[in-house]
């Protein structure tokens, strides 16, 4: 029986001797030499995902102004940030739209600028215009402030996203008779195309489906810098039905993540505009999975064909109604092939999540660990879901 502790893995990382492979490479290795031999050989498997994660945002702290000010309403490049915190703190959400944007009044709207774009601009080192107003107090008398700021000039800036890194996700089709513009992209009528949004076999929580290693404090790649799991993400739902490989069929697990914006790289944090829907943020996340035993190894060998997702109708009679909208089940090998056969109809598929970027992230994380620059953390608590762990698999 292979058994490894976090301390043993970190000692190997420090010595530059850790054996690290990415979650794509590991599939072939396990196929060739088996789970047991692979578990003996490999210390860490790196994962990655790069996709639109709407529940993202950043806490920013500006230095105190002279005279001092308790900022009430805060705007960054005309995008409102939440200022209901202490004097010069704010929270900028990814889906916040710039003031004056026509939104969907000219349907489908273009949504050119919002919180996600401001976060990207700051990380790219660009200047952003801060405007703030306040009601004024004895201790904070200033009522108006305007200044151009850059990330380097901020006192603190960190991404704190309440829900990122969905374990799995709906696959979208549109069965109504007109095009719909959704957060899953443009869906043509009568099953004209299918969109999906997961890195599948590379995706972090699909390589640890029962959260046996990922938990509070897990050290990870976040937007090009280092970050941590802060908490189970909002809508974390570990009890979703699972297939015979232990893979949840629905969204299931999520992560709340935190990380220093000043370390990040705008190649992995991109503001997006979704026609007819709104603004958001593409975020890159990579999670290292420690190979503690043969079971963690077995889960990391999961391949696209073994990962299934619900095919959901995003047409006007489906998802928007809140009623059940699942019309089928598809796996990621089919989805990645570019065409899915559904009810005798061949439908073209496209991802909204970049597999090549996910692989790049898994490779960067691998290089950090191999170079001894990135150690693994033992979670302070595992995510809810470990208690559901069942060797029998399917439920």
């Amino acid at each position, binding site marked *: 029986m292979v058994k490894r502790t976090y301390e043993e893995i970190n000692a190997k990382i420090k010595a530059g001797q850790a054996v690290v492979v990415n979650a794509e490479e590991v599939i072939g290795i396990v196929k060739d030499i088996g789970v047991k031999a692979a578990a003996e050989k490999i210390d860490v498997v790196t994962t990655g995902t*790069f*996709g*639109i994660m709407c529940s993202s945002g950043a806490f920013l702290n500006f230095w105190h102004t002279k005279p001092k000010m308790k900022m009430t309403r805060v705007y960054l490049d005309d995008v409102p940030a939440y200022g209901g915190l202490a004097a010069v703190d704010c929270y900028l959400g990814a889906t916040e739209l710039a003031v004056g944007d026509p939104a969907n009044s000219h349907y*489908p709207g273009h949504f050119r600028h919002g919180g996600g774009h401001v976060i990207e601009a700051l990380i790219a080192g660009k200047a952003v215009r801060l405007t703030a107003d306040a009601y004024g107090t004895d201790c904070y008398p200033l009522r108006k402030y305007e200044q151009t700021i850059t990330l380097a000039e901020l006192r603190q800036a960190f991404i704190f996203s309440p829900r990122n890194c969905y374990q799995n996700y709906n696959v979208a089709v549109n069965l109504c*008779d007109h*095009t719909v513009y959704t957060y899953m*992209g*443009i869906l*043509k*009528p*009568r099953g004209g*195309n*299918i*969109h999906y949004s997961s890195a599948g076999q590379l995706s972090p929580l699909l390589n640890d489906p029962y959260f046996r290693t990922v938990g509070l404090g897990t050290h990870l790649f976040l937007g090009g810098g280092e970050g941590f799991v802060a908490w189970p993400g909002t809508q974390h739902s570990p009890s979703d039905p699972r297939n015979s490989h232990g893979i949840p069929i629905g969204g299931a697990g999520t992560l709340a993540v935190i990380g220093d914006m000043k370390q990040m790289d705008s190649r992995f944090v*991109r*503001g*997006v*505009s*979704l*026609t007819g829907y709104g603004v*958001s943020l*593409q975020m890159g996340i990579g999670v290292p999975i420690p190979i503690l035993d043969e079971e963690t190894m077995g889960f990391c060998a999961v391949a696209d064909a073994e990962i299934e997702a619900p095919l959901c109708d995003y047409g006007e009679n489906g998802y928007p109604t809140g009623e059940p909208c699942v019309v089928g089940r598809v796996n990621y090998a089919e989805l*990645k*092939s*570019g065409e899915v056969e559904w009810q005798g109809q061949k439908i*073209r*598929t*496209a*991802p*909204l*999540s*970049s*597999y*090549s*970027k996910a692989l790049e992230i898994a490779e960067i994380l691998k290089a950090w660990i191999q170079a001894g620059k990135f150690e693994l953390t033992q979670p302070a608590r595992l995510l809810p879901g470990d208690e559901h762990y069942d060797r029998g698999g399917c439920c």
Partner: protein
Amino acid sequence: MTEQVTKNIFVGFSADLVEQPVVYHLAKDYQLIPNIMKASVSPDKQGYLVLSLTGDPQDLERALAYLRELGLTVNLLTEHVTWDLVSCTQCGACTAVCPTGALALRRPEMTVSFDGDQCIVCQMCILACPVKAVHLDF
């Protein structure tokens, strides 16, 4: 007799207009010579035509006005789409809405490629790209 001119156009049909016999009218009512270069037209589904039209310049302008009055999308193919590899995040959201496969995913590496020769300037990619990595140039 005025000199004949040729224009290449993209005509997009919504599902309710797909049964309109526009090529017949272009030839009969406007004395144009239509040459269908690409087409995707099915009953009750949205579709498109890429046409080369040759004829009198004034007839050609009247014909384009006729198509637009019908409610069809008409784009002159003097415009072209430019894809910015640096800005592209390789997500692939443009690939299933692209009607000709000009924007496609290379497999197995899953990176986006663009073949300008296949592009019919329907501009769906411009709507679909979340990071505005495709542009319309004139």
